[in-house]
């Protein structure tokens, strides 16, 4: 499977350049990240399962249909979807070696992410005013914990994006650092996909 390297290892007395050798040819960081995403699927899967199991078992309101604002959340979901697009553009930027574009789209992604978090803060605040807290009923507990966990993931992603953004100025992220952006992108897209699942299951399929 890795013939050239095997050949090199066979003859040279001491191989100096084999510490970049990998069996699959893929970066280990990327493989690690995919396993991490597999694990995260189980995390969100369990939270979503809890939500679904408890759906409709509330003894007191507010119930989901009384309080969820689908138009508003559609907008915030759209914002998050757009951020996946800008993330793709950021990766395309660094792959072409265009650090300016990378910077621009990283910042755009981060700002869209912050907008999403802003929508969520507004929504949570609004719900609390409407009388729905963590304590109110099962819906309050499951809704806030599930969407809150997702919001926390978006927040971590925003911090990550800004970190990459600033590192483009220190020279740490430069042309050729595709992988750093790609992995951040994997995370970002994953968080986005999770939101699509949550949006569908909680908001659309009441």
């Amino acid at each position, binding site marked *: *499977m890795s013939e050239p390297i095997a050949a090199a290892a066979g003859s040279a007395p*001491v191989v100096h350049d084999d510490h970049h050798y990998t069996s699959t040819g893929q970066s*280990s960081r990327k493989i690690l990240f995919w396993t991490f995403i597999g694990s995260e699927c189980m995390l969100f899967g369990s939270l979503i399962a809890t939500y679904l199991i408890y759906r409709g078992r509330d003894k007191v309101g507010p119930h989901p249909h009384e309080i969820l604002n689908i138009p508003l959340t559609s907008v915030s979901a759209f914002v998050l979807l757009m951020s996946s697009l800008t993330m793709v553009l950021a990766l395309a930027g660094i792959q072409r070696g265009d650090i300016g574009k990378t910077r621009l789209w990283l910042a755009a992604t981060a700002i869209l992410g912050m907008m999403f978090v802003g929508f969520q803060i507004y929504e949570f605040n609004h719900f609390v005013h409407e009388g729905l807290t963590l304590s109110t009923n099962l819906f309050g507990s499951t809704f806030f914990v599930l969407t809150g966990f997702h919001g926390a993931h978006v927040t971590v992603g925003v911090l990550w994006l800004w970190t990459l953004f600033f590192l483009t100025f220190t020279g740490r992220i430069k042309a050729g650092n595709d992988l750093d952006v790609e992995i951040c992108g994997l995370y970002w897209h994953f968080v986005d996909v999770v939101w699509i699942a949550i949006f569908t299951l909680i908001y659309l399929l009441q």
Partner: protein
Amino acid sequence: MATTVAAAPTHATHAHTGLWSWITTVDHKRIAILYFFTALGFFFVGGFEALLIRLQLSHAGATVVSAQMYNSLFTMHATTMIFLALMPMSVAFFNYIIPLQIGARDVAFPRLNAFSYWVFLFGGIFMNISFLMNVAPDGGWYGYATLTGKAYSPTHSIDFWAVGLQILGVASLAGAFNFITTIINLRAPGLGFMRLPVFTWMTLVTSFLIILAFPVITVALVELMFDRLSPVPTNFFNVAKGGDPLLWQHLFWVFGHPEVYILILPAMGVISEILPTFSGKPLFGYAFIVYSGIFIGFMGWGVWSHHMFTVGLGPLGDTFFALATMLIAIPTGVKIFNWIGTMWGGSIRLVTPMWFAIGFISMFIIGGLSGIMHSSPPADTQQNDTYFVVAHIHYVLFGGTMLGLIAGIYYWFPKVTGRYMNETLGQWHFWLTMISMNLTFFPMHFSGLLGMPRRVYTYQKGMGFELYNQMSTAGALLLAVSLLIFLHNLIRSIRKGEVAPTNAWNGATLEWATATSPPPEFNFQKLPTVKTLDPLWHQEGPKGHKIDVGGTDGHGIHMPNPSYWPMFAAFGMTVMMAGLIFGLTLGVPGGLLFVYSTYRWALEPAS
């Protein structure tokens, strides 16, 4: 092959002595040693707890410990043995052996590896601090709702347990990500998946189980923590608001049953290495052993409710989970038959590691058979929550996992230290262990079938439980003696053991090909090229392929730099998590240290 240097000088540039070198180490072999001794320490803590339990049960109405302390002891005995002794002991083996077995210079992420260890250490200490504060966890290792709710457990005991398990979960997850990546991506040239040693295979399966199972208990614990610790408490397990205690059981056992295989599969891997070596012939049915291991790991997801046959699942649920559970007996049987097949026709060298491997098979059969007895829900409704099940898990976890890991200690000790463990002491250890463990655990089958529930701090006179409990107590004391012999042998042999050649037992796998024992920091000067299963046994003859790993000169080989940031990050995270219980005065500084250390770690040069 006969380079018999106990501690060969290598060209590694990193300091090799002093406490600081251990704190900053990112070398998988040294991290393995840290894991090993920490897990061994916790094993003796858990063992001490077990002895107190056994003394308390030695006669009806004993007052060795209070009811409250007893409840903490059985909770912490199980929690300690599972999360602080057996799992990390397995991880010690993963750490030391996997990179060597796959012909790699280290794991894929050496600093993440160090982080895993420090999180495990701090998490273990954190959980045991609860004893000093007199609020040791007392809700059982499985912490069923609603007993763990604030209303019925108002002290911090359950908080210590929940937060402690979350911390330990991080360690397990980080380790599992690392080993999956390492095994997928750092195999030596030519080392395809179907040439992997079975121990490596079982590590891979175990790691996948960890990354998929731990998030489930993470969520369960998050829900419990929100119920208990949130200033605005949630209702996940609050029955008054419609919460369902069974949700906890489902989430816990969806994690808990794969966890059982997380505990046993590594030991099965160890056995699958030892049996061929000492039988002098390859593993019988390699592919079947690998596939049955994968199948067991897969089926482990479909049987969780067999822990819940008494909750009233209804006949259809009971039937489904009973049949799925019985199905697991088949791949387990396949493994046992193949192990016996491995020995059949061999030339068996009966030395200590082999004795323990044979002991593993023999004891594991007993544990497996009692498992079949309660795979049947009607029978289980009489056995569940009695000492019968206590007997079963101890035949599986002590007779299985622990004997397997002890076998592994004797087996790989010469690789780690360059010396053999003492054979005479080893044989005493083995036979005393076999005698004492059967004396301890076999009578529990009887006390259980005769009606003794588990998790009771006392029992009444006239129930007929005394005799069997006294046998168990005597066995436990004898078991402690055998473990002291083991400890003595271990410590003594590190310095005084007979010097071993690098391939100490004529093993077939790559860890025995290193230039020295212990191996140089970089493991292999040259990465070996592999063309067969059992590569070291196929080096001679016209079709043979010589395994060449070079010598001990590490000049020019880049090894990762030591770093203390993983340790600080782990410490910061533990303090931050403790802040969930003790407030922001701990949480904020801990969180800041964690974030700062993580950034420093991410930004420092890796090599």
